[in-house]
């Protein structure tokens, strides 16, 4: 029997398998950041051991950094200590660090691909659940806990059970106004926030292959929001074109040799998945979430339902109470207070371009505070060069500096209690964007048009 793409990459990386136990999986690239790594380094120091393969780990500061005045020392003491601890650990263990002020600094899942650190066929891990993003390049990429960060630092390996495989196939042409964020929110609304648990998902079909690399990353990024450990997409010409001349991509003849290898990274025709789910691209419309888990999503012009798959009536009710919403109500035209364009889901240059295109020459509504947080220094630089930052500034957006920002509200970028935010991030959990905050997840296009109008808006009608 043939193998799926996932199985091919997995099998390549199995060092050994414990009898009646997990496999020992070799990790090609390990990304670390300031929040989930300090305790792992403490573990190494307690054992008096050094990082085993320091050249295979790359560090950046993103989760806990301010998005204003990054040239100044971090004001908040605990945050500063965490970032300083990362710097110290990287120095002591010879790890490349792209910290604040470095031209490569940015959200870990934005810089990996844009620097060519992420490559097809690799195993990539990071102490962050959105590591699934890197699967867009045909790599096995997933989030890990801090004990596992310690395992990778000390042995470049992890003990892992092989997940089941799932194919999500989407055929057909996408309708106008539908972006990759809508595709993934649609999938999660159909299978729920736990429908992918225990699985590793492969995305395929013409609606997926038609997408740019940035858009594919958005889809793989949110695989974890349906519970899947990761998502993977077979690399193709677009993947190779994207990786050409990136800082850490193979160069010259080595690049073409790599492509010859990468071309084989696809599922065999006779391979079997544990589960197959098919969607028609034409069913998908611009999406928005109304609840407190990413499975609670609707088409933007629909009314809020009275139940959701895999949510009990009690949980559903609690969720709507938190959101201050009712079943049967429409989100369309709902007044909003904040707009956040950013996060590892939607802060790449393509996201900023589509948003800027909508707001160009216009002003955001008076009732709205709107932030754009570029995903990396490189995205920031291109946005300034292309005049996008000026468009955002003139429209009344705050164009800030790179970091995770209000996606998880670890720094001072918080949505206040009971305020509504249309957000391009990945989680609408209670308090995720700040205690008491209320999040509507949507695409950068929906976020931009809603910022102009001051209420939840449909790009197909309100532009």
């Amino acid at each position, binding site marked *: 029997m043939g193998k799926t793409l996932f199985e091919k990459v997995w099998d390549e990386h199995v060092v050994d398998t414990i009898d009646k136990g997990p496999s020992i999986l070799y990790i090609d690239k390990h990304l670390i950041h300031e929040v989930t790594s300090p305790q792992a380094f403490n573990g190494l120091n307690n054992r008096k051991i050094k990082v085993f393969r320091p050249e295979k780990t790359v560090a950046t500061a993103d989760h806990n950094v301010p998005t204003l005045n990054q040239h100044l020392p971090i004001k908040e003491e605990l945050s500063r200590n965490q970032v300083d601890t990362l710097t110290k650990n990287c120095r002591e263990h010879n790890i490349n660090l792209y910290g604040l002020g470095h031209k490569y600094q940015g959200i870990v899942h934005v810089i990996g691909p844009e620097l060519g650190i992420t490559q097809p066929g690799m195993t990539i891990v990071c102490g962050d659940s959105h590591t699934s993003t890197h699967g867009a390049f045909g790599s096995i990429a997933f989030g890990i806990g801090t*004990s*596992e960060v310690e395992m990778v630092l000390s*042995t470049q390996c992890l003990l892992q059970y092989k997940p089941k495989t799932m194919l999500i196939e989407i055929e057909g042409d996408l309708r106008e106004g539908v972006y990759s964020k809508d595709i993934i929110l649609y999938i999660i609304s159909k299978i729920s926030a736990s429908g992918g648990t225990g699985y590793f998902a492969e995305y395929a079909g013409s609606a997926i292959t038609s997408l740019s690399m940035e858009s594919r990353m958005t889809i793989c990024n949110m695989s974890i929001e349906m519970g899947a450990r990761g998502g993977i997409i077979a690399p193709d010409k677009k993947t190779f074109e994207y990786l050409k001349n990136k800082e850490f991509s193979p160069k010259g003849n080595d690049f073409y040799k790599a492509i010859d290898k990468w071309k084989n990274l696809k599922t065999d025709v006779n391979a079997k998945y544990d589960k197959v789910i098919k969607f028609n691209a034409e069913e998908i419309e611009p999406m928005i979430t109304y609840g407190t888990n990413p499975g609670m999503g609707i088409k933007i012009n629909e009314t809020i339902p009275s139940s959701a798959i895999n949510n009990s009536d009690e949980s559903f009710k609690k969720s709507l109470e938190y959101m201050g919403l009712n079943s049967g109500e429409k989100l369309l035209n709902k007044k909003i207070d904040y707009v956040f364009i950013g996060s590892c889901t939607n802060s790449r240059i393509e996201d900023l371009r589509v948003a800027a295109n909508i707001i160009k020459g216009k002003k955001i509504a008076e009732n709205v505070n709107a932030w754009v947080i570029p995903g990396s220094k490189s995205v920031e630089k291109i946005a300034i060069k292309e005049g996008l930052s000026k468009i955002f500034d003139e429209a009344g957006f705050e164009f800030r500096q790179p970091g995770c920002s209000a996606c998880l*509200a*670890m720094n001072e970028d918080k949505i206040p209690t009971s305020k509504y935010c249309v957000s391009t991030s990945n989680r609408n959990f209670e308090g995720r964007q700040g205690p008491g905050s209320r999040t509507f997840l949507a695409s950068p296009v929906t976020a931009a048009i809603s910022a102009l109008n001051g209420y939840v808006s449909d790009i197909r009608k309100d532009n």
Partner: protein
Amino acid sequence: MEKFKKLSSKLTPLNIENVDTDQIIPARFLKAVTREGFGDNLFRDWRYDNHDNSIDDFILNKIDFNSQILLAGRNFGCGSSREHAAWSIYDYGFRVVVSSFFADIFKNNALNNGLLVVQIRQNILDEIFNKLIKYPSLTFNVDLNDQKFYSDDGVFEEKFEINEYNKTCLLNGFDNIDYLLNIKEKIVKYEEEK
């Protein structure tokens, strides 16, 4: 890691589904660089209001007994990979989380810290939640060796699954990192053959 011993305890019922790790420990409390002390902020925004006053309704503020077993709704631990979630539950004093379904990363993180996750059938979970409304002091037992979760009154007795490897690690307090460090030669050999 501490050895996991057979235990008897009353349950702390948290009848909420899809409890994500942001609820278990909000991001603003992840700024520490050590593993200790996270229990103080376990379920922070459900336990305390915006002015740090206890919310009397919340289960951790309601029960007046010690409990080592957290009983939680379906899809516990979804969302962020933060191991701080497992640390905060353990640090608070829990040694077992019982639910009908766990998120993958949380499960790994829990086991790596000696926190046992016990998965039982949904209908049994519902029955136990119901029973606790009337009998909140009912004691349950967790026997990892026999893979059994059962009540003192003899009504509930559930077998649970755990991989042999993880079971051995928990019972003996073995550590995955020790295991991996011991097979470094194999890892180097793998690298050379690549």
